[in-house]
């Protein structure tokens, strides 16, 4: 402490501070203290681990719940229903069955009654409750497939009713339980993969629903979203990153893009409703609605506006990552500024741009709220065939089914969720793969 640069400080008592002794770490008090500190360290560390594990556990719980509830939705119970066609007195012109009007030819044959009485004959008075209300549709398909079964007795596997389904998986009504025991004894019950779930559309009967209509709607909607958001987003990013002068206008563009990325999705639904579906007066003329309600076109446009900022931000980052030396080299051999960007910068930035686009599209695919507001919550029993047809999308279908009272919809909802999650995971996996494969360190 005799360093001239470090004057001795006067202490409170007026004297000088006693030179400090090295801490004796071996005393009990010190050991106690260190033990305490280390214990706190361990506790803290464990707390962190608990937070991570619990978050992951919640995810696992969510996925396991959905899987266990939903896997049943991919399978259906079928009942072997024997029908003796000649006895039922069915009269059908077999020649008409090969032609497009086959449904019409069979419509007059009263298949519903025939199937109903066949069920009574086979399973007793409870019979009509054993088979699904739409079992005659399966019989109709079977007849169309092979008209020769009309000549004799045929056993057709028809879907079981929701009651029977429940009696098998959990507990049902006493009558249904009795029927199941009887059917199982006769070996008349089989489990089959429910192709109908993938190929049919919405219905009021949970055993008959399918997700094909919703998937098709999702596809059309995503198509519109991609065709608008991708080019516009990438072009805007190119302009802002490569050409834009630094002035008040471009600042305004930047601020609005950053804010748009954080605007709640439902606000975009309100925008779509007011702009695309609303009417307003222009120069004394009534204009609008610009687009048809409930169509994939209006849903896709709304989602495009929503994910455009995501694409712009990801593309800007990808373009920014391309080193300036590449631009300088291209400019140096006489390329114009447009050529520099479109021949050199853009191809190099493309993997990053695509990654961001896929992530944005995945977000759009899972989005529900804005689509509810633009009317895509209609009951769609026939899949849409064009961009302007009434349509719904998979997440909205899930929402609609979750509102249904009938118990049979629970497993269908979970099954649809599984399909949605598989699509989203696949998209994210592609994005991660792209990022890892094409990631370049310059």
């Amino acid at each position, binding site marked *: 402490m005799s360093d001239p640069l470090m004057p001795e400080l006067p202490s409170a008592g007026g004297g000088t501070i006693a030179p400090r002794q090295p801490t004796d770490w071996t005393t009990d008090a010190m050991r106690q203290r260190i033990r305490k500190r280390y214990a706190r360290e361990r506790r803290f560390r464990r707390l962190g681990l608990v937070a991570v594990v619990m978050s992951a556990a919640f995810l696992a719980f969510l996925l396991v719940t959905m899987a266990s509830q939903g896997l049943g939705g991919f399978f259906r119970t079928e009942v072997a229903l024997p029908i003796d066609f000649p006895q039922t007195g069915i009269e059908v012109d077999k020649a008409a069955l090969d032609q497009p009007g086959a449904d019409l030819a069979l419509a007059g044959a009263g298949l519903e009654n025939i199937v109903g009485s066949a069920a009574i004959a086979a399973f007793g008075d409870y019979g009509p409750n054993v088979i699904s209300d739409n079992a005659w549709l399966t019989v109709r398909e079977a007849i169309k497939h092979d008209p020769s079964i009309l000549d004799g007795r045929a056993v057709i596997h028809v879907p079981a009713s929701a009651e029977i389904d429940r009696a098998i998986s959990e507990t049902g009504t006493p009558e249904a339980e009795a029927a199941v025991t009887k059917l199982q004894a006769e070996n008349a019950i089989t489990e089959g993969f429910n192709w109908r779930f993938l190929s049919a559309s919405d219905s009021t009967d949970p055993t008959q629903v399918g997700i094909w209509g919703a998937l098709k709607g999702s596809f059309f909607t995503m198509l519109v979203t991609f065709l608008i958001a991708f080019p516009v987003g990438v072009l805007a990013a190119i302009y802002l990153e490569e050409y834009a002068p630094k002035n008040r206008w471009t600042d305004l563009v930047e601020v609005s*893009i950053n804010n748009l990325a954080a605007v709640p999705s439902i606000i975009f639904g309100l925008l779509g409703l007011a702009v695309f579906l609303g009417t307003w007066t222009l120069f004394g003329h009534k204009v609008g609605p610009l687009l048809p309600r409930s169509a994939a076109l209006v849903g896709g446009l709304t989602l495009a506006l929503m994910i455009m*900022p995501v694409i712009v931000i990801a593309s800007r980052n990808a373009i920014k990552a391309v080193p300036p030396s590449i631009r300088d080299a291209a400019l140096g051999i006489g390329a114009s500024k447009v050529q520099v960007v479109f021949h050199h910068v853009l191809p190099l930035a493309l993997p990053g741009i695509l990654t961001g686009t896929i992530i944005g599209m995945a977000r759009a695919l899972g989005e529900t709220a804005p689509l509810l507001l633009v009317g895509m919550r209609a009951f769609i029993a026939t899949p849409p065939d064009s961009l302007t047809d009434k349509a719904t999308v998979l997440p909205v279908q899930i929402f609609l089914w979750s509102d249904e009272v009938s118990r049979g919809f629970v497993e269908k909802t979970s099954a649809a969720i599984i399909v949605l999650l598989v699509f*989203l995971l696949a998209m994210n996996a592609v994005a991660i793969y792209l990022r890892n494969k094409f990631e370049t360190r310059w």
Partner: protein
Amino acid sequence: MTFSALIFLIAGLGLISWLTARARAARFDRAGRRRLHSLPAQHGWYVALWTVVPPLLFLLCWSAIEPGLVSQAVMAHPAAAQLPGFDFERQAVLAEARRLASGSQIGAFNPLAEQLAPVMAEAQSHYAWLGTLVAMLLAFAGGAFAFTRIRANFHARTRVERVVMFVLIIASLIAILTTLGIFLSLVRESLRFFSMVPVTDFLFGTHWAPQVIDPNDPGASLGAVPLFWGTFFIGAVIAMLVAIPFGLMSAIYLTQYAAPRVRRWMKPILEILAGVPTVVYGYFAALTVAPAVRDLAVMLGMEFASSESALAAGVVMGVMIIPFVSSMADDSIAAVPTAMRDGSLALGATTSETIGRVLVPAALPGVVAGVLLAVSRAIGETMIVVMAASGAANITLNPFESTTTVTKQIVDLLTGDAAFDSPKTLAAFALGLTLFLVTLALNIIALRVVKKYREAYE
């Protein structure tokens, strides 16, 4: 000719003109006398643009005025004199005639529509052919004009690039237009709402019951305070009580303690939580969490426990936000200079002491900004509350009771069949405007905080 066929035709013409123009420019080049100013392909683009753009612009305008011309032609027909004078009925008859003419409806309800249908069909085909003819003429004229301008010293590149820059600027303006569109459409509908309901009734009223609106005093049942409270309670209190501890501790563990291998695996797994669609969370909250919360409430001795409690929606929303808080905290902790951490460790502090007394205080502005962004996301979240929260607007501090939120009410108000200009539907836009302004303010504050903080360390 259908519209899409016309578009294909124009695109085909564009391709042909691109090819011929490029070939012609290349011949100039091969002559070798004078060097081309622009590449042959650039001449191609120049001519193709002249071929394609004018007819497309024309078609855009034409599709706007064609319906007017058609109905004018129909009105000139003597049968149109019998049309009902009332505008609504007249439009209905004309719409039916249009459907008959296009073949999407077979058999008319209204005999007048049946009479007008052939007139309508004739007028439509007349104007469709006229439009096609003009579009084709424009395409050929534009292409020919541009084709004659190809010279060795013609500056095709400059002109094409000018168009490219124009397109780029338009693309970047769409972001502003969207923001402006959101703001204007919300403000416009909100102004209509506030012309029926006083602003003070809406902002400070404590009674919300849109199902029964007294036409003489709509403001009495449209007081939004219960919604604001419910939104705040679910999104900013319950959800954050879950998201902040879990998010922050996960970020600390993964950045400071976890082995690189654990981190490499756990980070994406947590990010999956953010990628799960909200409708799935909503379904999970309604079907699994809400009944469990109700059972818990019954166990705690509450008699009329709600199965649509604020707690169920809030907890699930909090879980959804965990990865968001975690990644924001991760970023801001990583931005603290290593020297500060090393200094603290070198002085003998344990890792947890370093984290608690050095890293987190230094990263606090970033963490706070992350929390603000998380709150803004939570209060704008829709599907979880639509599916798991109730529609009953209560002001309560009890998390087991039901409350409703702004987003849930927007969806409920707009999915009924009410007319577009009733106070009930317009209230949704006023709620939307409030939500938009609040989230905007939260974002701006958060970005400010982050910016300021970054400047302090770099």
